[in-house]
């Protein structure tokens, strides 16, 4: 399975905010064991989708030249569950953005229900340091995640606003 936990961006304001959606399919492996007979999305994966949305938002500011790593989640609260067949909406806003890192606040809705909110701290690694730690591969901004953003930009170029996902 590919490590992509968002399906598409539906809104993107560079340096400020991003919204992405994720449709949950019963075919996803995690539903088989979490839990048998009661398929709900594991909370860490919900958080991963939010972090991918926020990470792309932060990385785009410098056109993905710097490596951005999820350094810390100072706060996360889960208030509901998401089941197969439902759609998640990830909304993220940049609270702080500096040379050394960025702070993003986000919410996750399942349909209209708020099911999670979190604050995520991203650190910028300079190139020499990140090469030491992670090698040349930029695992945060894999080609697939950037591709999703590219698709969103294309959609935005064709229409005055990014189309809101049905849900």
């Amino acid at each position, binding site marked *: 399975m590919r490590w992509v936990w968002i399906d598409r961006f539906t809104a993107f304001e560079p340096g400020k905010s991003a919204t992405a959606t994720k449709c949950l399919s019963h075919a996803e492996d995690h539903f088989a064991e979490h839990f048998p007979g009661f398929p709900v999305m594991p909370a860490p994966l919900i958080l991963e989708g939010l972090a991918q949305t926020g990470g792309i938002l932060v990385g785009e500011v410098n056109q993905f030249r710097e490596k951005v790593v999820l*350094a*810390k989640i*100072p706060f996360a609260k889960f208030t509901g569950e998401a089941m197969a067949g439902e759609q998640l909406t990830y909304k993220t806003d940049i*609270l*702080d953005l500096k040379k*050394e*890192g960025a702070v993003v606040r986000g919410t996750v809705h399942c349909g209209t229900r708020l099911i999670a909110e979190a604050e995520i*701290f991203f*650190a910028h690694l300079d190139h020499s340091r990140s090469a030491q730690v992670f090698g040349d591969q930029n695992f945060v901004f894999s080609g697939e995640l950037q591709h999703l953003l590219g698709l969103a930009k294309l959609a935005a170029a064709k229409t005055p606003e990014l189309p809101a996902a049905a849900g």
Partner: protein
Amino acid sequence: MTLDEIFPRVKTQLVDALGADEDDVKLTSRLQADLNAESIDFLDIVFRLEREFGLKIDRNELFPESIFQGDPKLIQNGVLTADGLDELRTKMPYADIAKFEKNPKFELIGDLFTVELITKYIQSKLNQKV
């Protein structure tokens, strides 16, 4: 602004950044040894203090990382020399060096990073702003 006025605001930020109990955050608390701060927490704390007090904070000024660079004039056999202590006083003017200098082992420098150090630093910055 007095230290008594600044401290509760610093405390709130440390509780949020470190997930610490309010009762555990005292002026004398050491960030690492008492409040379990890790390296990334120092950056988080700087960001939070900037937002809370509307200040621009140089991370290396508040939490200097590499003061000695292995210079034998400043540090020998893991212990700070007189020159090393002077350097520390210059680089960390808000730290309580008096206690540290009785046993100036390099490995104990982390104990200088206390809640009081942050509070005094913020007070100094706010005074400069005025």
